[in-house]
């Protein structure tokens, strides 16, 4: 997978604007008695590419799932694109249609073709005519380099292709923010490359991205910030170079020694 990153990445478009895309302040979440997320504070500007790392069970998934309200937080505030996430259904709908999400296991709809997977949400949520939705879908499928698979079913595609369809499916909703939850960890090494390439392209186009991943090569080259979480807290954040070469906290050092060591 290190191959994937070895090409020269054009960072010129990856500008970060002043506009705030996501603001999380003093957010806390419990599962029953268990305090999963503790006092999270995070501001993400438009165009930022953030990689979230941390040991298993540290709450990374939970945090990004809170951002599009797949999980409910109990204290604090999350403001996405100027809209606060409350239990107000309208807000949730609004935010969900602006935030795309890619899961570890793709979660494509197996009973629909690739094209139908991509047009479903635009048609039913954005109420875009079928014709137009299909055009958009084909556009993004071309972008992820699998337009020829459009009429196949997910079961007929390889894992890497499926994950790319999942990305295309999110993009069809024209989201302003993309969340990735370990998008490559269910894949074989060759397939990882395909998917990371696609994500790098997205980054190059200036998409705001939050990505939970342990692909440190990717983090190093694409992210403009790496966040390290442990025990439900943000322990350290920094620019990738600094983060990898000069970690401040003990926890981070330990973690990095482990993942880089092996």
């Amino acid at each position, binding site marked *: 997978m290190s191959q994937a990153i070895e090409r020269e990445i054009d960072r010129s478009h990856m500008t970060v604007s002043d506009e705030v895309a996501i603001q999380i302040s003093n957010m806390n979440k419990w599962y029953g008695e268990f305090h999963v997320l503790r006092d999270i504070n995070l501001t993400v500007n438009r165009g930022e590419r953030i990689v979230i790392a941390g040991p298993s069970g540290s709450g990374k998934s939970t945090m990004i799932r809170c951002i599009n309200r797949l999980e409910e937080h109990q204290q604090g505030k999350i403001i996405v694109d100027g809209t606060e996430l409350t239990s107000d259904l309208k807000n949730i709908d609004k935010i969900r249609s602006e935030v795309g999400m890619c899961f570890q296991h793709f979660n494509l709809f197996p009973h629909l073709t690739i094209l139908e997977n991509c047009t479903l949400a635009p048609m039913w*949520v954005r109420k875009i*005519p079928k014709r137009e939705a299909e055009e958009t879908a084909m556009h993004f499928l071309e972008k992820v380099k699998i337009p020829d698979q459009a009429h196949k079913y997910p*079961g007929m595609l390889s894992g890497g292709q499926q994950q790319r369809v999942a990305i295309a499916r999110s993009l069809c909703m024209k989201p302003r923010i993309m969340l990735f939850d370990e998008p490559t960890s269910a894949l074989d090494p060759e397939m990882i490359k395909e998917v990371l390439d696609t994500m790098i392209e997205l980054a190059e186009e200036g998409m705001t991205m939050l990505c939970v991943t342990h692909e440190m090569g990717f983090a190093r080259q694409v992210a403009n910030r790496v966040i390290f979480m442990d025990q439900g807290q943000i322990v350290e954040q920094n620019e990738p170079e600094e983060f990898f070469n000069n970690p401040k906290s003990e926890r981070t050092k330990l973690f990095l020694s482990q993942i880089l060591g092996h």
Partner: protein
Amino acid sequence: MTTAIDTPQDQGFRLSQLIYDTRYRSITIQVIAMLAFMFIAAFLVRNTITNLANLGKEIDFGFLFNPANYDINQRLIEYDSTSTNLRAAMVGLLNTLLVAFMGCILATVVGVVAGVLRLSKNWLISKLMTVYVETFRNIPVVIWIIATMAVLSEALPQPRAFRGETPSASMWLWDSVAVTNRGTYIPAPVWGPGSVFVVLVFLLSLLAIWAFNRYAHRRFEATGQILPKFWINLAILFVPTLLVFFLLGRPIGLDLPALKGFNFQGGTMLRNPMLALWLALSFYTGAFIAEIVRSGILAISKGQSEAAFALGLRPSRTMNLVILPQALRVIIPPLISQFLNLTKNSSLALAVGYQDLRATLGGTTMNNTGRELECMLLMMLIYLVVSLFISSGMNIYNKSVKLKER
């Protein structure tokens, strides 16, 4: 390296090859199986022939065309005691199919509701449904049928309880429905002049609904607009029909049941045997269907609904567009075999005296004509045909929805 070893000579066919040679062995086994099968079949047939000869009987289906001489209380087609045995069998078959059909519908409704509620986040309701499922499916259906019948005939009032100055029982729904221990009497429609038009309009509005849904779908695809289909459908279904009904001066009247003589007269009578059989079969099968529905929905991973939510689909749309289409594939095959079971279990009509196929062809006709072999064979054949019909439907469905995989 040395040269090739001497190859064993071909010795032609040897008897031991019948056992040790894979090519002949399979033939040997099949021939033995075939012989055994034919031997058993011949044995049975021969015995039957001798036994029949000893009794001085022969296989003859002529009795089907002789008058049946008995009455059947529930008739979906014209029948009286002078009709033929064949017709009696038809009446019975229709009764079987009727109760099976209604049973399948009610069982599906009950099962789907219970299955979905069992998944409900509401602890109380899901436990309640668990209790329902576990009670019904662990007790034999015959007991349910007999117990339901016993309760219907012993706990409900007799028709005469409705009589007198101070009747101990009264009718329901503004005196239009009478629930008695013989059956439930409900109003029946009376087709006055002009009712044809009402029916026609009703059929037309069904057509209109179909057309409207197509239109709505096209429009949705073209413009992305979603029409409030449910309400419009409802309106199309009822408004024109009701309009014509009142314009024509209410041509369709209701024949209300009323106590006359020994029983209620008028209206339609749903006899208790049928009710007992129907309810018991439905709730029993419903318990199995509930489990099928539940596991069908559970079989669709949580990831699917999360993905749909993340795309911004609302829960109801997620259910309709993502979960249900997938769950149905899992649900329908076992569902259909439950329908099959229900249909076969309807032969337990025996327990309550519902006059189904078994009671007519395999009961009174068999007894009156003494053609037990013919009647039994015919009856099994009919059940077999019905079953095969249902299961071939299932196979067609299975083929059509099989998930495409590589």
